């Protein structure tokens, strides 16, 4: 949670990441374990990212984008809720 300047003063913003990992993985018929192996993390890490409980760091996000041959922005999206 952080403060951002809006039109009339400051607002509390709750950032949340959305991702298309589950969809992209299903398209390629990969299991969570297989994707984890390709990017060098555990199956549990992939599960936590897919369920939105864990937001990956930049190196991992870039590795994920690379294995799907996409840009990070195409997979991860930042949602800011007031």
């Amino acid at each position, binding site marked *: 949670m952080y403060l951002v300047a809006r039109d009339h003063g400051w607002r509390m913003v709750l950032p949340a990441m959305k991702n298309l990992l589950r969809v992209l993985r299903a398209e390629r018929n990969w299991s969570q374990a297989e994707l984890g192996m390709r990017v*060098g*993390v*555990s199956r*549990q*890490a992939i*599960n*936590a990212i897919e369920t939105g*409980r*864990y937001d*990956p*760091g930049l*190196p*991992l996000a870039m590795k994920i984008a690379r294995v799907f041959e996409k840009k990070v922005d195409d997979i991860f999206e930042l949602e800011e809720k007031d």
Partner: protein
Amino acid sequence: MPQDEKRDPSLRILGLMFGTLAVWAITYVVASRMLHRHTASARFRVTAVIIGVLGFVLWQLATAKLIRMHDEFTRRIHLIALAVAFAATGLFIFTTDLLQRAGFIDFISMRSIWLVMLCTWWLAIMGGEWYYRR
């Protein structure tokens, strides 16, 4: 290929961790026995302290290496667990200090503080794993 290269590196580090844990236990017992003698020699007592501390430092280094070789997700769980252990230990110290001064409890060993930190660290790792992996 040499036998060492065939072994899983995580198993090697785990072995290193348990090995250093055994070294820590041994050095602690040795240091305690040396200090129990109540010798007047300062050099002897300093040596006992150094032996005890060295064993502990070795175990800490092995633990840090074990954590570092995991992926960022597991490292995050450990980081949160350390923060929880830090807060819980602070709470324990603060509470026992007041209870001692109020006359409700007797002297508390410094080792019990370490035990509280170790237990809360472990519990917080379990809690973190449960939260993220459920």
